[in-house]
């Protein structure tokens, strides 16, 4: 069926909300196929209707369970909901087991929910490089609330700040050093702090700890909401949905204009790529720069500048 469609027809189908066209456009982007470029260009004028909610947090805090409940709330409010679930790829094989679907089973037959699992493909547990494009595709296809779930380990989750309008950070009591596990970076991006598993002892303490940690950073304090949920029963999730909608309605958007966003994302992505490449590259000029640094013949900044001068790292 789909083979018969021309590229223009496929873009039209995508923007008409055809789920197969969306699924395929996402794959084109993930596989960096030539078709992706023209699709992304064509949808540019149609972006910005969707609101994007980033969800990250401590592993095991109940993100997936919470998201499933939250989707139920959004569906009740008549929203079409897209979910982008990012899981880490195995650093060794590059493969991944994408299991977030397990907790989304209740939406498995609802055509108003579109879930796509992405492997982080080497991007330290954070946003896969294509996740923001996937969000744009869902936006163009008429999904009006898009949830981006990332695992809360590594530095990647900070990237979510660039992709989301409202950022939810999920923690829970009883995860060991729970609050400490929310590393500085992750707290800084939060607009809403959720203490999930409110049915467990210690939830109030966790919430109090979070509140005092927030108070400590009063200098650059943003207005951060704290709320408690029990994702397994749904308790507190309606309130969470209200908090998010209120923030969205207040124009609480750091997603920024497309141009700024593109700039930040390109900077981050190019930096990540360069880092990965330089760690593995075997090249005499690079060795020389490192040796000069070791011998104290140059400082780190000059060494880095020398690398950028010498590196012509990408072909094609």
């Amino acid at each position: 069926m789909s083979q018969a469609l021309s590229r223009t027809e496929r873009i039209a189908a995508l923007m008409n909300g055809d789920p197969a066209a969306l699924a395929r456009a996402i794959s084109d982007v993930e596989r960096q196929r030539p078709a992706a470029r023209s699709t992304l260009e064509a949808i540019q004028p149609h972006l910005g209707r969707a609101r994007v909610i980033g969800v990250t947090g401590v592993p095991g805090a109940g993100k997936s369970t919470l998201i499933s409940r939250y989707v139920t709330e959004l569906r009740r409010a008549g929203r079409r909901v897209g979910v982008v679930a990012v899981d880490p790829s195995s650093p060794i094989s590059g493969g991944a087991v994408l299991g977030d679907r397990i907790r989304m089973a209740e939406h498995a037959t609802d055509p108003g929910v579109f879930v796509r699992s992405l492997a982080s493909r080497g991007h330290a547990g954070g946003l896969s490089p294509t996740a923001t494009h996937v969000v744009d595709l869902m936006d163009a296809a008429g999904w009006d609330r898009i949830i981006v779930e990332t695992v809360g380990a590594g530095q990647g989750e900070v990237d979510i700040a660039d992709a989301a309008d409202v950022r939810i950070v999920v923690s829970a009591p009883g995860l060991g050093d729970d609050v400490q596990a929310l590393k500085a970076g992750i707290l800084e991006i939060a607009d809403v702090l959720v203490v999930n598993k409110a049915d467990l002892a210690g939830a109030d303490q966790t919430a109090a700890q979070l509140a005092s940690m927030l108070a400590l950073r009063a200098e650059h304090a943003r207005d951060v909401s704290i709320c408690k949920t029990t994702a397994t029963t749904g308790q507190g999730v309606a309130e969470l949905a209200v908090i998010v909608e209120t923030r969205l309605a207040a124009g609480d958007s750091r997603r920024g204009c497309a141009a700024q966003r593109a700039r930040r994302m390109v900077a981050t992505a190019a930096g990540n790529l360069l880092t990965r490449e330089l760690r593995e590259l075997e090249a005499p000029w690079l060795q020389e720069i490192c040796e000069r640094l070791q011998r104290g013949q140059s400082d780190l900044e000059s060494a880095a500048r020398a690398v950028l001068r010498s590196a012509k790292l990408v072909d094609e």
Partner: protein
Amino acid sequence: MISRRAEPVRVLVTKLGLDGHDRGSRVVAAFLRDAGMEVIYTSPWQDVTAVVQLALQEDVDVVGVSSLATDHLLVPKLTEALAQAGLGHIRVVVGGIVPDEDESMLKRSGVSHVFHPGSTREEIVAEVDALARAARRERDGD
């Protein structure tokens, strides 16, 4: 040089029907991952409509259905539903305990391969990989 990686094959590993044992499919999911594939893993008891929606949204190349009891008898419904949804390129494989007479019935209904107990990892990986690439070629027309 910064080269682009080969694109991982995407496989949906699932179960149909009432049989809730999912240990076998977990093991398969793990070794397909170790072979570099992206495995979408779902809870048991997915019904056919759910599997089709999932396969469509996730744009998988292969659907693997694990069956220990008689759940494989639901698979012809799945292949039919996939075809109806315009997903006829997706290859369906079944793994588990499948009697010979059922196997020929499954093949006739469009199942590409049946893995019996004792199939090795290597066999499964090689077969799934080949089927996935064929599925992708068929869909992309290149």
